Each structure stands twice: as C-alpha cells, then as structure tokens.
C-alpha cells in the first residue's frame, strides 16, 4: 500500500495524489509575483510616511521621510519580502537567497510584515482612541502588506503534498504552503569567504539581539517578536540557516570565536546600564541552563531542583564575600570564592545524587524537586530563630561588595577604548568568561568517551550497562559536573545582584533563573545542543522582562507556548547535531518502519517480540 500507483480514480477531488500542490489562492504565477512585489514595495514606501498625527504613541511615527519605531520593523520585513520575491524572478545575484524553499519564505516574510503593520495599526487606534488617528502612511503600509500576503498566497507551492495526506483540507494546505524542501549541499567557497559569511551571520545575530534588548516600550518589543519570528522562519525555510549551520559546522572554532567576539561587543553597544544588566542576567540564566543541559540533555536525568545548585554557589560566595551581614567574617579573593562556590555545589550535588541516582526516571524528578525546595526552606530557617544563624533567613545576605580583580573594580564604570563600560557591563564580561568555560566544558565532555556514555544512558540505560558502562557512576558524574557548573555561575550571580535571598531559588517563579524556567530553556532551545539553551534562556528572560503588562498571565502564557512548541517542534528551536544528519539521508528520516522490506522478507511480526 505504500506504492504510489493510484489504480482507482474513484476519489472525486480534482487533485491526483502525485500532482504538485496548488496555491491557496488560484492566481496566474506572474500576477501573483507581481502582486507580491508591488505589495511589499508599497508597504516599504508607507514606512516613510507618517502613520499617526501625534507623538503620544511611542516611537514618534509622525515624521515623513524618516521611519522610526514600529515603522522600522515593517521596513525590514518588507525589504526581506521584496528580496525573496525578486529572487523568484531569477534575478542574477539574488539566487543565493533561496537555496531551499522559493516561495514559502516570501509568504512567511509577507505574513510578518502584515503581522507587525496590523499590530501597529491596532495599537495606535487602541491607544489613541479610534482609527481616525491613523494617517495615510499606515494605510499605505497596511494595504501594501495585505496585497503582498494575497500575492504570496497565489505563488506556486514549493513541495508536492506528502504521501500521508495527498488531499489536505484548507488548514492543511495553508500549513503545507509554509513548508519547504531542504537546500542542497552548498558549493565550497574559499575559506576566507566562508569565514566572512559566518562573521556576517553572527554580526546580524548580535544586532538583532541587541535591538531586542534595547526596545524601550512593549509595543516595539511585540512588533520585534512578530518580525523576528516570521523573518527567522522565512530565513530557515529559504535554506539559509541550514547553509550557515553547515558552514559553522565546518569552521567550528572560527564560529565559536565569532560568537564570543559578538558577545563581547554587546556591552559596548549599550550605553544604558539597565540593558547591560539584562544582558548579564541573561548570561547567568543561559549559563545555568547550559549546565543543566549536561544533566538533562546529555545524560537524560530529569532534574527539577537544579536551581538549588545555583543557590548553593551563590550562598557560598556571599558568605565568603566579606559582606557585613555574612555570618562568616572572611573575604576571599575572587578565585578562591569561585572555587568555594563550585566545590560547595559539587558536594551538595554528590550528596543528593548518590542516593537518588539509583532511582529511575520519574522518581528522580520527584526527589530532585523535593531537594530543591528543601534547600530554599533550609536557607529560610537558618536564621538564628528556627535554626543556627547562618543565612539571615528570608532577609538573605545583602550588601555583597563588588569584586575587584587585578585592581579592576567591577563596581565602577570604566572607560575602555573610548566607550563607557558600566558596572553591569563589567559583570556581563565576567559572566561571559564563565559562559565560555561552561561552553568549553560542555563541548569537550560531550565529545568524549564520557559524553558518549551519557548519551548512551539517555538512549537506553539497560543497553548501556550491557555495553560495560557503570550507569550509576556516570550519572553521578553528570550530576556532579552539572552542579559545579551551576555553582560557578552562582558565585558571579551573588555579586551581580548585590544580595542573595532564598526566594531567588524557587521551583517556579516570575523571575527567570528558577528550576522550571531553566528546564524550559533547555527544552525550548534544544536538548543536547550548546546554542539551544542559550537562545532559549535569552527568549525566556527577555519576553517577561519586556512585557511587564502581562506579568499576571506569565505562567499561563508560558505553559501555552510550551505546549504549542512541543506539538509543532518537539526537538526545540535548535535541533541536535544528530538531527542535522538529514544531509546524509534522503527521504528516509524518521520513518524507518515505512520503508518496505525486500520481497520475501519473513518473520517481521516475530521480530517485534
């Protein structure tokens, strides 16, 4: 039945299963493309006109000839749509834009433009009280975006319908029109060109990221999210991301260096200390998430109390920081404090891991959840009242002094290369060093005998032990390593946030580094990858920080987002290196069962035993 010969033509639909997919809106190809180009050009022109009459709406959209705020986002989206649409004309020099899908990127980009422009128009009329507040420019862009979407819906679809569902319904057809084939393998370019492309890729990434952090009002951030979400998907469907990741896989060390250079540049682009602080906090969150990825992503141990290890590191560092409220009146130099924090977490990890890692799966999750809460409650109780006075209970340890490393006081602004580096900028860079260490640890351990053993345990523990792997010892090793990495991050965190309190280390809370969000960052970003948790953490930190108005519904929205993600992209935003091996496999990915066995195959049923 897997054969593709439709013997019976009894189906009364107009399509045959092997026929190419038809566009959603039946338009002649030339007309559809012309409409798309004209629409996106119109949307682009509209951004140079005034969208509203008053600058009461943030971003000042009243100036003609100079796009600002949300207009810039429409402009970028429209430009992207235009480029993708023109590339479909076969214009020389634009072909490289669409090595994968040709028309689905156009549709996605057009939808992005329509989304932000529509959102901007809605927000203006809502905040200023009515559609009358819209100036013609907004209508020009809005109608242009709509025309572009209609045109893009009329463009030919990139792929024929899949064999499983040869005659999808309307919703299926819309979803299908957003899919695209994989790009072919790229021709080899000279190394220096490839490296330049990598650098440019990371440069764009840094710019987008810094722009997101720097958005000053929530309307702009929402518009930013819409454009980047659609734009990113469009770029992915066009096959550009695959091409870039093929290049980064080829020049891994260069890519890594480029990523860090881009990250180092970030605080120099921020004059506002508040945004640099967001950057530092994202790094803390991301580093801890990456540490958790050793435990969850590599070894497959579901740890629901991981934030406790961050807490142990932070408390240890706070106690030896020389804070006047510390119960131990010592002040360690930073390197010693780091070792203390990491070692304390390590010990805590082994103490918790040794009894619990003999348990399997769900039990481990519950026990770690319990231990995480026990840590917080214990810190609350060591207040001199209900226990010995070590941690000041719920007041925590405040007034943690700023670090001074080699005479460089991280608490003061410094002038570096002509730009002002704020306190948060300093800590951002220190934290970046930590992140680099954790990235290196993750990468090196993953690509070794130990890392392979962890993955083997994750895949099938019984088979792993039968291959000679001491399951308990290796799981404990992963747990202890993960704990010490979190402890390392904790030592910096204590200084960044001036104080440590038990409430910072909850299972679930509204401020990101908590166990639930850490786990979500790993899963959302992509388990077992390096960039996945970093991206996941950045998103999970930025979205609540920028959209304060939805704080009440934060956990609800978070849950919905997670459910949608698990439904539509269970592997996370960044797929595992192993999942990128699609390049080797033509069409048989994920469906080994569907592959018909050779004629005469016997005992298939028996084999399932």
């Amino acid at each position: 039945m897997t054969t593709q010969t439709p013997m019976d033509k009894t189906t009364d639909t107009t399509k045959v299963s092997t026929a190419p997919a038809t566009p959603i809106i039946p338009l002649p190809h030339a007309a559809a493309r012309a409409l798309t180009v004209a629409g996106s050009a119109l949307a682009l022109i509209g951004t140079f006109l005034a969208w509203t009459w008053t600058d009461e709406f943030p971003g000042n959209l009243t100036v003609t000839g100079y796009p600002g705020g949300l207009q810039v986002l429409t402009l970028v989206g429209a430009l992207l749509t235009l480029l993708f649409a023109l590339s479909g004309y076969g214009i020389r020099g634009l072909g490289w834009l669409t090595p994968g899908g040709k028309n689905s990127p156009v549709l996605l980009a057009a939808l992005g433009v329509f989304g932000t422009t529509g959102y901007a128009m809605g927000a203006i009329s809502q905040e200023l009280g009515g559609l009358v507040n819209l100036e013609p420019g907004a209508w020009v862009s809005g109608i242009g975006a709509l025309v572009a979407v209609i045109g893009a819906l009329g463009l030919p679809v990139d792929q024929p319908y899949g064999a499983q569902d040869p005659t999808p319904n309307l919703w299926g057809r819309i979803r299908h029109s957003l899919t695209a084939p994989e790009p072919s393998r790229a021709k080899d370019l000279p190394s220096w060109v490839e490296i330049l492309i990598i650098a440019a890729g990371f440069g764009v990434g840094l710019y987008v990221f810094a722009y997101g952090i720097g958005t000053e009002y929530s309307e702009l951030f929402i518009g930013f999210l819409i454009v980047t979400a659609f734009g990113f998907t469009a770029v992915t469907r066009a096959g550009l991301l695959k091409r870039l990741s093929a290049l980064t896989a080829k020049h891994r060390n260069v890519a890594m260096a480029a990523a860090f250079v881009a990250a180092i540049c970030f605080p120099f682009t921020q004059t506002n200390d508040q945004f640099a602080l967001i950057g530092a906090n994202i790094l803390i969150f991301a580093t801890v998430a990456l540490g958790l990825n050793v435990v969850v992503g590599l070894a497959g141990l579901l740890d629901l109390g991981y934030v406790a290890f961050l807490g142990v590191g932070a408390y240890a560092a706070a106690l030896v920081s020389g804070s006047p409220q510390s119960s131990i009146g010592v002040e360690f130099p930073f390197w010693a404090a780091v070792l203390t924090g990491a070692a304390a977490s390590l010990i805590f990890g082994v103490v918790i891991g040794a009894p619990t890692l003999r348990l399997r799966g769900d039990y481990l999750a519950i026990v770690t959840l319990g231990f995480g809460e026990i840590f917080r409650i214990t810190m609350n109780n060591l207040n001199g009242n209900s226990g010995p006075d070590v941690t000041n209970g719920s007041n925590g340890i405040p007034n943690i002094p700023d670090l001074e490393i080699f005479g460089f006081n991280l608490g003061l602004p410094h002038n570096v290369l002509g730009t002002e580096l704020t306190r948060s900028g300093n800590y951002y860079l220190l934290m970046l060093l930590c992140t680099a260490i954790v990235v290196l640890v993750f990468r090196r351990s993953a690509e070794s005998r130990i890392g392979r053993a962890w993955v083997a345990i994750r895949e099938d523990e019984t088979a792993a032990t039968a291959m000679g792997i001491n399951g308990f010892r290796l799981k404990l090793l992963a747990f202890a390593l993960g704990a010490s990495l979190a402890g390392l991050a904790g030592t910096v965190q204590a200084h960044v946030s001036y104080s440590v309190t038990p409430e910072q280390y909850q299972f679930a809370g509204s401020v990101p580094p908590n166990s639930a969000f850490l786990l979500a960052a790993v899963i959302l970003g992509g388990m077992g990858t390096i960039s996945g948790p970093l991206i996941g953490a950045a998103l999970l930190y930025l979205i609540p920080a920028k959209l304060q108005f939805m704080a009440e519904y934060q956990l609800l929205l978070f849950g919905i987002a997670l459910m949608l993600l698990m439904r539509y992209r269970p592997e996370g935003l960044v797929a595992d290196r192993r999942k990128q091996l699609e390049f080797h496999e033509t069409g048989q990915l994920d469906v080994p069962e569907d592959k018909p066995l050779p004629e005469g195959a016997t005992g298939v049923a028996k084999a399932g035993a």
Partner: protein
Amino acid sequence: MTTTTTAPTSTTVLDATGVTMRFGGLTAVRDVNLTVNTGEIVGLIGPNGAGKTTFFNCLTGLYVPTEGKVAYKGTVLPPKPHLVTQAGIARTFQNIRLFANMTVLENVLVGRHTRTKEGLWSALLRLPGFKKAEEESRARAMELLEFTGLAAKADHLARNLPYGEQRKLEIARALASEPGLLLLDEPTAGMNPQETRAAEELIFAIRDKGIAVLVIEHDIRFIMNLCDRVAVLVQGEKIVEGPAEVVQSDERVIAAYLGTPFEGAPGKEEAAEVEAAEAEAQSTTEGDDK
C-alpha cells in the same frame, strides 16, 4: 567455509552451573548447566517462552539469578552487567536495543567503553593521550564496521538503518568490547533468507577471530549449519544437549516444538512435512529474487 573448524586447546570460556531464575511463582529458568569452550559455536533453542532470553539475562548480570553461578574463564562473575562486559562477555538483544539517536559509529564507540580509560579530566583538559586514544578507538570502530559491512553508513543515525543492518550493528557494537564470548539473541529474527545466510557467514568469521559464540535461534536450519553443539531449553529446563543432528532427531525436542504428539502419531513425519513445506517456500522466494 563450514570446514574451517579451528578447535585449538579447548578451554572452557563459559561455565554456568545450576542457574535458576524465579519470578514470583514462575520459574523461568530451572537449574540449567551449560559450558561453552573456545572456538565453539553453541546453539540454544527452544519454543517461545522457554526461558532462553531470561537465561542470557542471568549470564550477563541483567538479572540476578535466584540460584546458581556463572563463571567466565574460571572466575565467577558478579551479577553486574558492566562487570560482566568488562570481564569479556558481550551480547546482543532479541528486541534490538541500539542507541537510536546516535550515529552508527558512535554506537560502536560506546561499545569500546570498557576498553578505554579516558576520564572526564582527560576530556576537559585534553590531556596528552586523549587524542591518540580517541583516534585509536575510532580506527578500531571503523575496522569493526568494515568487518560487518556497515562502514559506508558510519554517519547515519542508528534508527534510520534498515532492520537487517540494525542487527549487524548490534553485533559490531558487542564486538567492540573485545569479548571472549559473544551471546547472540535471535540474530536473524526478521531477516530474509539472503540476510540470514550473510549472518551465518558473519558468525563464522567471528568464531574464526577466536571468539566463542552462544546463539539463541528459532531457525533450525540456521542452527544446523552453524553450531557445533546445541542445547534445548523447554519450560526453563535444559532437556537435551549434543551435536545438532542428534538433537534434531530427539523425540523430546520434536514433542516440545510441535506439542505432545497425538496417540501414536509420529512427530517425526510431521516435522519432515513442515521442513519440506518450508524448504519449498524458500526455494520459490529465491526463484523470485533471481
């Protein structure tokens, strides 16, 4: 190729004595004794549910036998799977248990775990010797993939291999631990006749490497071609053991496979009938293939 019976000093590799495994009221394996000598291929047959896989699990430490002990080359093994593998017994699984999301090469590299020593520090600091050990492991693993005919697929994910190749990969992974004894649990289940024959060749080649083999199989012809000695397990008990021809014509074995014969009805005839029918079926499929 069957004639290359290299039987050097036949020392005992595996010596299982009085192995008994009870699950609550059910005795899955009852007082089984079995030895395997170097250079031997021993078959273990029996109807479904006879306790063959359970016996393997007892040998490899996945189950702790209720009674009895297992010795490898004279030393009694602790019932811990990783120590058993460390000692030199490797196995495959009846229901394939590969590391599905690892590549073919990585699967084999995991098999080398006990034969390499590089720890976490060595990996983190890239101590001298780390790179060399990694390269050596890779070379050894590629050799084994070459040996099993999977070298071209080294970078594929294990789960994307066709069925027959997954079974081969299980064997390659087991061989990576440089065992002295290989336990194969139904290595040809789900294979077509050509693949089965290739598997036979492979097992002979393994034996010629000096690795003793204990194989569970349903396919009588396969066992006949392959094994020097066959043990029959029925309802947890070893009822016969001996050369393949002797075992095949044993009344009790036939009875066990075909059910207790009706009064006077000779089991042998029925067996012969079935055999003939199977042979015919096979020859027709072969004809189709040509």
